[in-house]
C-alpha cells in the first residue's frame, strides 16, 4: 500500500524510496521519479524494487544487497546501477536502513547519482587494477622464476638420472631378451641331445632332471620374448594421430573373440569421441582388455561387455602437488555383468597391480595395458562395483601435449 510522502522528502536533492521486506516499493519521491524519467509515482509504487535496477544490479541485489540488509538492518555506500524508464542507466551510491513499524519492517533507501564521480572512480579503479595486476604479475613472475629455476635443476638431474637408467635398461633388455636367447637355446638343444642319447643308459632320476632343464629353458625363452615385447612399448611404432576408437574397439573385440574360440559374447558400445594416441598401442590395449575380460568370464554364462564414455576435466599434473591445469579427458568404462565368481576378483587384482615388470611373465596383457595407458598420460583401474559387475575405468586425455 502506498503512502504520500511529506513534501520535504519529495523534494530532497536525492532519490528516496521505501520498500517492504518483500522488496516491494511502497513510496517514491519526486526527485527519483524525475531522475528515472517517469511521469507519475503510480508507475513505480507497488512494484518490485528490481524494476529500477539493471540486470546486473538485480543480481547483486539478490546475492549481496538484500542478504546484507536482512542480516545487518542497514547498508551504506553500496554501488548500484539504476535503470531509467527509457533504458538509460545511472550509476548511484545507495544507503539503506531498516525501520521497524507496527510489526512490519520497512526499508528506507536513498540513491545519490554519481555519474561524474563515477567516471572518476572508474579511472581510479582502472588505475588500481592496473597497478595491482602489474604488482601481482611482478610478484608472480619473481616467484615463478625462482620456482622454475629450482624445477630446471631438479629436472636436469632427473633427466640425467633417467637417461642413465634408460641406457642401463636398454643394455639389460638387449642382454636379457636377445643375447641370453642363444645360450638358452644351446642349453635346450644339448639337454635335449642328452635325453635322446642317454635314454637307454641314464637313470630315470637323471632323465627327469634333464627334462626339467629343458622345460625351464623353454620358459626362460618365453619370458625373454615377452620382456623384449614389453620393453618395445617404450618406443611407439607410429606417431600420434586422431583415433576413431569406435572402429578400433569393434575390430579388436572381434579379433579377441575369434581368438578365444568362445561364444555367447556380446559388445554393447556407446559412441566414443576421437582421442589422440598411438594407433598400434591403443589397438593392443583394447585387444588385451577384451582378451582378459573373456579369459576371466564366468563359465557357462553369456558375457556382455558394455562400453560407455564421457568427457571429464581432469588435472593434467599427475605427480606435482598443488599444481593444476585442467584438460579434457575421455573416461571410458568397460563393464561386464557376470562377475559373480572369483575370476573377476583376480582380474581386478591383476589390473590394479602397480609393479610393472614383476607381472610381465604371468600377466603380460595386464602389464602391457598399464604401460600403454601410461604412455598416453592416462590411467587405468578396475573394481567390482557390486557382486555382479566388474568395471574397468580408463582415462585417456583427448590431446597428448608436447
Amino acid at each position, binding site marked *: 500500500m502506498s503512502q504520500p510522502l511529506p513534501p520535504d522528502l519529495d523534494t530532497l536533492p536525492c532519490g528516496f524510496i521505501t520498500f517492504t521486506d518483500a522488496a516491494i516499493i511502497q513510496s517514491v519521491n519526486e526527485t527519483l521519479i524525475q531522475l528515472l524519467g517517469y511521469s507519475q509515482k503510480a508507475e513505480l509504487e507497488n512494484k518490485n524494487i528490481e524494476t529500477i535496477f539493471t540486470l*546486473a544490479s538485480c543480481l547483486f541485489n539478490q546475492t549481496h544487497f538484500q542478504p546484507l540488509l536482512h542480516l545487518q538492518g542497514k547498508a551504506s555506500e553500496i*554501488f548500484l546501477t539504476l535503470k531509467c524508464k527509457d533504458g538509460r542507466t545511472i550509476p548511484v551510491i545507495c544507503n539503506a536502513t531498516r525501520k521497524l513499524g507496527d510489526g512490519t519492517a520497512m526499508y528506507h533507501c536513498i540513491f545519490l547519482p554519481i555519474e561524474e564521480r563515477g567516471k572518476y572512480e572508474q579511472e581510479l579503479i582502472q588505475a588500481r587494477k592496473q597497478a595491482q595486476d602489474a604488482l601481482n604479475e611482478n610478484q608472480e613472475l619473481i616467484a615463478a622464476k625462482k620456482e622454475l629455476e629450482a624445477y630446471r635443476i631438479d629436472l636436469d638431474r632427473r633427466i640425467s638420472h633417467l637417461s642413465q637408467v634408460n641406457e642401463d635398461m636398454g643394455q639389460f633388455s638387449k642382454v636379457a631378451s636377445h643375447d641370453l636367447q642363444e645360450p638358452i637355446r644351446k642349453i635346450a638343444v644339448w639337454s635335449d641331445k642328452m635325453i635322446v642319447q642317454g635314454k637307454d643308459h641314464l637313470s630315470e632320476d637323471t632323465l627327469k632332471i634333464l627334462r626339467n632343464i629343458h622345460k625351464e629353458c623353454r620358459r626362460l625363452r618365453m619370458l625373454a620374448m615377452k620382456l623384449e615385447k614389453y620393453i618395445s612399448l617404450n618406443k611407439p611404432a607410429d606417431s600420434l594421430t586422431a583415433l576413431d576408437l569406435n572402429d578400433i574397439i569393434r575390430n579388436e573385440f572381434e579379433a579377441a573373440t575369434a581368438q578365444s574360440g568362445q561364444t555367447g559374447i556380446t559388445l554393447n558400445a556407446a559412441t566414443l569421441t576421437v582421442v589422440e594416441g598411438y594407433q598400434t598401442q591403443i589397438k593392443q590395449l583394447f585387444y588385451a582388455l577384451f582378451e582378459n575380460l573373456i579369459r576371466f568370464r564366468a563359465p557357462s554364462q553369456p558375457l556382455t561387455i558394455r562400453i560407455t564414455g564421457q568427457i571429464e*576435466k581432469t588435472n593434467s599434473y599427475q605427480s606435482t602437488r598443488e599444481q593444476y591445469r585442467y584438460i579434457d579427458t575421455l573416461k571410458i568404462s568397460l563393464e561386464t555383468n557376470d562377475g559373480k565368481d572369483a575370476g573377476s576378483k583376480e582380474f581386478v587384482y591383476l589390473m590394479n597391480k602397480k609393479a610393472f615388470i614383476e607381472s610381465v611373465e604371468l600377466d603380460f596383457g595386464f602389464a602391457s595395458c598399464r604401460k600403454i595407458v601410461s604412455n598416453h598420460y592416462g590411467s587405468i583401474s578396475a573394481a567390482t562395483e557390486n557382486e555382479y559387475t566388474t568395471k574397468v575405468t580408463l582415462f585417456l586425455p583427448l590431446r597428448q601435449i608436447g
Partner: protein
Amino acid sequence: MIKSAIFRNNVKVSGRGTRPMLFAHGFGCDQNMWRYITPAFEEQFKIITFDYVGAGKSDITAYNSEKYSDLTGYAQDILDICHELNIKDVVLVAHSVSGMIGLIAANKEPSLFSRLVLVGPSPCYINDGKDYIGGFERKDIQELLDTMDKNYIGWANFLGPAIMKNPDRPELAAELTESFCSTDPKIARQFAEVTFFSDNRRDLSYLRVPSLILQCSDDLIAPLSVGDYLHSHLPNSVLKVMKATGHCPHLSAPRETIELILQYLKTAVISHIAP
C-alpha cells in the same frame, strides 16, 4: 603439504541418523544459509555442512587460483570431504552453482552419491545466441563483475569499522564475520567469474545419479526455461516448480523446500540406473 579437507572446508557434522546428507552452499553464501533446513533432517540423517574455500570460515590459505579456475576444483573438494569422512550413498543438497559442482562430482564418482537435490541450478547462465536461454547476456555478467569491483571498497569500509568499534564485544565481531558470507572479496570475485561464465551443459547427459530440480517460480538467476532445459537433459530427474520466488528458497521458503525434499526422498525409486 596437503591439508585435511575437514579443516580446509570447515566441515561440520551433526544429526542422529546414519545416512549422510551433504549440504553445499551457493555463490555469495556460506554453510549458515542452510540453518532453516538442516534441523528438519537431523533425526534421520547424518548432516554434513561445509564452506567452499574463500567462504565462511574456510582456510583461505588453501586458495589456489589455478585449482579454482574451474568448477572442477570445487567438485574435487566435495569428493575429498566424502573420502575423508568415509561416506557413501550421500544425498547431496546443492544450492545455485553448487548444483553443477555436485553434478561434476557425481559424474566423477557416481558410486558416492544416491541422490542429488539441486536448488535453483543452472548449467549455463549466458544465452548462447541460438536456442539456449540462460537469462543473461555476456555484458550483464561483465557489469555484475564491475559492480562487485566497485563495492569491495565499500565492503571493507563497511565491515572494518563495525568490527573495530566494538573491541569489548568480540562476540559481535564474530557474529559479523559469521553472517557476512564472502569473507574474502578477491576470492568471491573469481568465484563469480568462474560461476557465471561456466557452461556445463555437456556434462548433464552423463549423470547417473537420480536428481530433484527445485525451481523457483520467479528466479532471476535461474529462470523457468533453465529448469525445463535441465529436466529434459538430466536423465532420471524430477522437476518441481516451487511457489517460492527468488533464488534462495531455503532462506525465503524453508518449509516448502523441506517438504519437497522429504517428499522426493520418500517417493523416488531407489534404483541404480540399469544399463
